[in-house]
């Protein structure tokens, strides 16, 4: 599917006069053989003010119909519902803290996946790369010994680098060998986990520097450092995505890679960078998990990529690329968490959570499709 198949969903027909905006500036439909050339229009101050006002109205309308806002509504409803069911326990600080903690590590990976998906890529390998990163980091840390913060710093660097290596691999295979991202990262999903198992013989590494314990229990404003770390990653990720040229190129490539190429953007190099970001953040998430649980968790991340991709898609990141907000991913990631937590405290089988998430995901993507096909008639 090319970008312009997407664009051509429903071309507005000017001749029917349905597109009023398009009709306002034209001259009268006079003799076709004469191309009327009026003097170039000059932008007056009044015009500029009117344009700015119109822009505000349109911006508000776009915001109101955006997926993140809709999903924020869903999140509020879910929260209110479970609060009504369990007024004492569900909205308590301890429980909210739990939910934040549960989401934090996945959220770091979601930042990377957001970039990749906005560029119309895909990454299934993040859960395995997380395990690979934490295993390599744990091995290196126990290898160099030491219990202090510097050993942790080394671990962080190693975990990120280990993730970047898989990102390089994914990006290289996808851009140079032209293997589709779904298959490439499905392959590295297996391969990265396999290598991690080989390194540990399938057993978890429990040898973690003492400093990890103090980080895991340390708090700022009542919240764990793990949560704050995720906040920092999300904020930086969001700023880079929405304010910088790097972020803009990510959107352009996801929207129409050929247009990006013709405009002189090095598409392959950019995509490789994005897979490296996803990989590096997954490795970093591995280190966060290692600190939180003070052990590697080689068997515990088989569904991470599905959870993250679900959350990101719920947040309005288009599966076809070119559309998305970082805040959307944040909101999307909390929906599974809140559902899970709420259902557990409601004594509903946690299996229902999977059913509910699946259905919400399908519903969200359906709504997104509807909006795409309707955007021609504002």
């Amino acid at each position, binding site marked *: 599917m090319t970008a312009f198949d*997407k664009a051509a969903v429903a071309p507005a027909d000017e001749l029917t006069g349905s597109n009023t905006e398009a009709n306002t500036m034209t001259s009268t439909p006079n003799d076709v053989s004469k191309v009327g050339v009026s003097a170039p229009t000059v932008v007056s101050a009044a015009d500029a003010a009117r344009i700015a006002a119109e822009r505000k109205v349109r911006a508000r309308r776009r915001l109101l119909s955006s997926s993140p806002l809709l999903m924020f509504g869903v999140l509020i409803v879910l929260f209110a519902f479970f609060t009504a069911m369990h007024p004492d326990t569900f909205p308590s600080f301890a429980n909210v803290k739990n939910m934040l903690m549960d989401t934090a590590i996945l959220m770091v990976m979601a930042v990377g996946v957001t970039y990749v998906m906005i560029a119309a890529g895909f990454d299934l390998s993040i859960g395995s790369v997380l395990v690979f990163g934490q295993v390599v980091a744990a091995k290196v840390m126990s290898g160099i010994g030491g219990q202090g913060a510097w050993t942790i710093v080394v671990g962080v660097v190693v975990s990120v680098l280990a993730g970047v290596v898989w990102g390089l691999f994914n990006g290289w295979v996808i851009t140079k060998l032209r293997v589709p991202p779904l298959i490439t990262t499905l392959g590295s999903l297996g391969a990265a986990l396999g290598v991690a198992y080989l390194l540990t013989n399938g057993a978890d590494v429990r040898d973690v520097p003492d400093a990890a314990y103090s980080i895991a229990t340390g708090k700022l404003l009542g919240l764990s450092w793990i949560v704050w770390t995720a906040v920092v990653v999300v904020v930086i990720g969001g700023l*880079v995505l929405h304010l910088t040229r790097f972020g803009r190129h990510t959107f352009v490539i996801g929207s129409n890679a050929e247009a990006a190429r013709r405009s002189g953007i090095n598409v392959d190099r950019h995509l490789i960078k994005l897979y490296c970001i996803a990989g590096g953040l997954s490795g970093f998430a591995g280190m966060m998990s290692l600190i939180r649980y003070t052990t590697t968790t080689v068997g515990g991340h088989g569904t991470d990529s599905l959870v993250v991709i679900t959350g990101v898609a719920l947040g309005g990141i288009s599966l076809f690329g070119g559309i998305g907000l970082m805040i959307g991913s944040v909101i999307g990631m909390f929906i599974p968490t809140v559902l899970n937590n709420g259902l557990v405290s409601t004594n509903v089988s946690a299996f229902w959570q999977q059913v509910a998430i699946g259905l919400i995901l399908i519903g969200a993507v359906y709504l997104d499709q509807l909006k795409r096909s309707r955007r021609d008639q504002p």
Partner: protein
Amino acid sequence: MTPLLEARGIVKNYGHVEVLRGVDFSVSAGEVVALIGDNGAGKSTLVKTLSGVVQPDGGQILFRGVPMVFTSPIHCRDMGIETVFQDLALAPELGPAENAYIGRELFKQGWRGKLGIIDKAEMRRRAQEAFISLGTDVKDMDAPVAALSGGQRQSVAICRSVMWAKGLVFMDEPTAALGVRQTRKVLEVIRRVADQGVAVVLISHNMSEVLQVADRVEVLRLGRRVAEYRSKEVDVEMLVGAMTGALDGVGA
């Protein structure tokens, strides 16, 4: 007056197929030149050689009177030569202003610019100015291009090229997919572009359209320029005759 771009005896072969057999071509600043010809006459190939997409096998290209070898489309772009592709090459999810600045984003002043932060407001303002000065009906600089009509999309693609074209714009069938009214809008835009001093090379199949907007018409047949007319001195019949070889066109 020296033509802005002049091609002399351009030859291009694809394998054993001679697509261009010594084509001459020229265009001056502020002039709209239509390039017409039957399918396979070599119009697209000629434009590709003149816009750096492919390298000619022979002949000479002069830009502002100076011999020049265009190594790539990006090279041409840097020289002030832009191309409006038939498929427009727009990013449908992005707005007109964002599309206008793909690959040429403006940075903010000072330290924020050094961090790679782009100046969205300034880009939107300049794009809006350019769009208005060309008299296009694209109003919403933020709406995704996919939500615009075909004519508006065409306008976005043309404006984007014109914003950056200091010398010359190639347009490959810019009205091919448009209705009558939209076509007229696009032709108006093309005329305005030329009036701003930019040279325009228009590839088209539509004879009456060509005669409306072009100052000059160059006709290609079987890889050669067979005729060159001022559009005031020619009618559709003569053009068709030159294209098909029924008439022997004599350069005007």
